[in-house]
């Protein structure tokens, strides 16, 4: 009895309007009253709301009375569009039978439009293409419709054209979902198998698993088993998102909902696992899906060493909601005890940094992100390192291999030249080009990941006025002439400032880095000498002269409070800097190496 159920997700490139469309759908179906409506309601994290970007997928159940006179239960999963969170999309897809593909009428098809579309097709989902933002004067709906039709087949005239902002034509989206997306096919009678496609941590309910019941049923009265870990537990409750968590007595085959497990660690309830009933278990788990592998790594250090254990606690808690975050303890000779953490990408890293600072009120320092290298040793061993500081003495190293990526850049044809130029500068090579749609060219390259994480994306956007977009996948490890670039502060090497660079870039990057650091390191009470060295030579040096004057002038009319406030502000700024020896180094200095690509 699942005829009345439709499970679908909304997929799109970043900012094409998924969350806004979800808002309208919630309103049209009366799931949220107009009074309770805020923008992008499903983006519940502070950070999501502030950045206007979805970070986590979220699920919600809506009841809809369709034009055919019947009542439907619609389970909607909103997904993030940013490339870093592609894995969130892939999980959501496994819980659905259909996908609404949203394309911005002003931007057209972009890289994650394609990437997400291909994923949805390979998961066998029914695609409902929708063109959004037709209210904007720069909208080109006809052109975009043609492109979409070329991409997925079908008739350009049939593509639904909406404004998620004004609500124009969004009912048509619901009608199409009801008509075109097949109902889930699972049977209630079989042993239970439910796919965990996401989870979050709740201090009362423990790990809350977001599930799609494929077969059988789940209820709060029966002990469940997590098939991968073998953990058995009696759930605190099962329920649906309507749109906030609402307990129900039973989740049936085909339904989407949650299981509040009461478990205290996410390791026991992994995303991708299958939940079954302990007393009547299924024979086989569902095919799990890939666990995202971190791509970039960075050191996280408390600015004040006393915050170390608070930092560890915050990472533990963040991991509860974000299984893609990895971390382990790391010690830096220069800056003390911290953690080495792995992220899906730079955006993911930025999000984590902001969450630590905001949700846990900690001042932390992130070192420049690095990729994971393979180091061939003269002993024949291979070492995997994810931090320049771990690179062994050069005499013992025979070869350094770095990760290379396939990248696809989708762009209007005009920017061909400037994109080529950018990629070549970053050690990339051109492979091929395709025309996925009449107004779009797709350029395929290979490029070292290390070059990609050095503001490649910003540079691409600025060279193409924001029109080009990119997607990437891991290709292979390849050897190259790589070497360590070290920074010395007052004669002492600072491991946290080191970088691994290509031999031919070492000189130029060393100089550029010293120039940047000279501006970024504030003047101290003594002279600070900074030097860059690589391949055993000092490449560049500069001196940050001791400050000579730092004193507030007039104590105006006895306004001591104002003076004091200024001093307190100054002191706070000082506290946010990291002591390296006796030199205060601000956060930006540790990231300076990332900004060298542009020069």
């Amino acid at each position, binding site marked *: 009895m699942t005829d009345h159920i439709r499970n679908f997700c909304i997929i799109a490139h970043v900012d094409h309007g998924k969350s806004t469309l979800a808002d309208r759908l919630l309103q049209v179906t009366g799931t949220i009253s107009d009074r309770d409506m805020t923008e992008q309601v499903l983006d519940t994290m502070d950070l999501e709301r502030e950045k206007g970007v979805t970070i986590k997928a979220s699920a919600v159940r809506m009841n809809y009375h369709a034009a055919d006179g019947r009542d439907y239960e619609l389970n909607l999963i909103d997904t993030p569009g940013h490339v870093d969170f592609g894995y969130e999309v892939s999980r959501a897809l496994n819980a659905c039978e259909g996908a609404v593909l949203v394309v911005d009428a002003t931007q057209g098809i972009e890289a994650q439009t394609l990437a997400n579309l291909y994923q949805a097709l390979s998961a066998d989902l029914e695609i409902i293409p929708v063109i959004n933002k037709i209210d904007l004067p720069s909208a080109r709906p006809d052109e975009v419709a043609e492109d979409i039709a070329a991409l997925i087949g079908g008739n350009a005239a049939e593509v639904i054209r909406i404004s998620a902002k004004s609500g124009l034509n969004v009912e048509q989206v619901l009608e199409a979902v009801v008509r075109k997306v097949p109902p889930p096919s699972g049977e209630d009678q079989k042993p239970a198998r439910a796919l965990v496609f996401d989870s979050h941590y709740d201090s009362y309910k423990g790990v809350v698993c977001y599930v799609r019941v494929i077969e059988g049923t789940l209820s709060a009265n029966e002990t469940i088993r997590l098939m991968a870990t073998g953990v058995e537990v009696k759930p605190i409750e099962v329920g649906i998102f309507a749109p906030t968590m609402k307990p129900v007595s039973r989740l049936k085959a085909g339904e989407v909902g949650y299981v509040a497990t009461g478990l205290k660690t996410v390791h026991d309830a992994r995303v991708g696992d299958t939940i079954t009933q302990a007393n009547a278990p299924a024979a086989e788990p569902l095919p799990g899906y890939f666990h995202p592998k971190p791509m970039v790594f960075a050191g996280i250090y408390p600015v004040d060493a006393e915050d170390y254990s608070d930092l560890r606690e915050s990472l533990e808690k963040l991991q509860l909601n974000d299984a893609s975050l990895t971390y382990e303890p790391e010690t830096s000779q220069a800056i003390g005890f911290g953690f080495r953490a792995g992220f899906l990408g730079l955006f993911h890293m930025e999000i984590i940094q902001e969450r630590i600072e905001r949700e846990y009120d900690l001042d932390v320092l992130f070192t420049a992100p690095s990729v994971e290298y393979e180091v061939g040793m003269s002993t024949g061993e291979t070492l995997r390192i994810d931090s320049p500081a771990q690179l062994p003495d050069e005499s013992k190293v025979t070869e350094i291999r770095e990760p290379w990526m396939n990248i696809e850049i989708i762009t209007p044809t005009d920017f061909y030249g400037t994109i080529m130029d950018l990629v070549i500068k970053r050690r990339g090579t051109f492979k091929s080009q395709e025309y996925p749609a009449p107004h779009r060219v797709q350029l395929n390259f290979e490029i070292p990941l290390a070059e990609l994480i050095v503001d490649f994306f910003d540079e691409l956007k600025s060279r193409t006025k924001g029109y080009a977009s990119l997607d990437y996948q891991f290709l292979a490890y390849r050897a190259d002439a790589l070497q360590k670039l070290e920074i010395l502060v007052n004669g002492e090497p600072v491991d946290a400032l080191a970088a691994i660079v290509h031999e031919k870039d070492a000189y130029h990057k060393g100089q550029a880095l010293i120039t940047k650091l000279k501006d970024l390191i504030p003047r101290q*009470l003594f002279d600070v000498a900074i030097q860059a060295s690589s391949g055993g030579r000092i490449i560049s040096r500069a001196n940050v002269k001791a400050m000579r004057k730092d004193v507030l*002038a007039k*104590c105006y009319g006895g306004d*001591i409070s104002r003076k004091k406030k200024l*001093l307190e502000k100054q002191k706070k700024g000082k506290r946010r800097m990291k002591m390296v020896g006796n030199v205060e180094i601000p956060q930006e200095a540790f990231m300076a190496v990332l900004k060298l690509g542009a020069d």
Partner: protein
Amino acid sequence: MDVPYAVYLHIPFCRHRCAYCDFNTYAGQEDSLSSYVQALCNEIQAVGAGVSLPVRVGSIFFGGGTPSLLTSAHFRDIFQSLYRAFEILPDAEISMEANPGTVTLAALEQLRALGMNRLSFGVQSANPNELRLLERIHDYSDVVNAVLWARRAGFDNLNLDLMYGLPEQTLADWQKTVNLVTGLDPQHFSAYALTLEHGTPFGRWASRGLMPTPDPDLAAEMAEWVRDFWAEQGYEHYEISNWAKINDGFKMQNEKFDSSFRIYYSAFVCRHNLQYWRNLPYFGLGAGAHGYAGGVRYSNVLRIKTYIERVRAGGAAVRWPLTAAAVNQIPIHRETEMDETMMTGLRLVQEGVADAAFTARFGVSLREMYGREIDELLGFGLVEWKTSGDSGVLRLTRRGWLLGNQVFMRFLRGY
């Protein structure tokens, strides 16, 4: 036993706003002058009426804005209120800030007759281009006249305010200004480095790149040069930005906290400002004025019209000495008072903070309270211990006086 209070009166009127100024002052509101003075008199009365015992006052300071925009009739009214409300000590220092472009011999004579005994002229520079850039309303000849008139009117305690570290100012430009003004032989100098304040034309011009930002190293050179120069000329450097002409030693009252510690100063140190730096109480009267008394720091509402209205409406005062004009108040607890005593006291480059005085005031020694901070600063060579009488005195070193923030900051523990 009690230390006498100081009284600050704010006169927030200026003919034209200088391009660097972010003080609470207003141009083009002279219409309100008389009602403002009326309100000020009422506020004085309210403070006086708030206590039964006579309140002794050792210094009075008219600041601004431009107090010299008031007429002598205005001053007569204010003095009358002050004498009615407080017990003004016979040797009280009564100062006024004056814009050299707004004074006349006759007006200065009347002020002197009313009991004003110290004048502080905002000179800033002797260089016509700099004065124009700063948008001062006077030129240097106005300054010369103002000083001559003040002397003729019987003022023998004059301060000249100067600014250095101006955009495009060279060391030679600064030396020329200093040479000229020192020739006028005033009793006191204040020299402040320009700070570019947010929300002023200077702040905007600098951030848009229309005006060069002054080089802090050059400003440091100017400061060091002027300190040596004035030392040769017989001026005593007693506070970070203040110098007083040396004459016969003059014993300052410091007995309240420690009778064993005395410091001998020139007679021309500004006693009103000493009150701030020693972290002793003062009343703040007028729009936007700040006060510190009765264990609270407080400040009045900024705008002239609102100030007048609030004082006129009167109403129950929250706590003495706050009046109906007060809009902010922060109680100062013992810990905060200690920190603030360090922050202000260390500005006095000779006097510093005496351990005996600190211990007498707070019952705990400097070492006990700030051992770690003091050691760190000693290590940087920013402060030093010196013996004076039988007390150790902590004070800024020669290197420390231009790096004062680095010192003060460390004594603020964030209560």
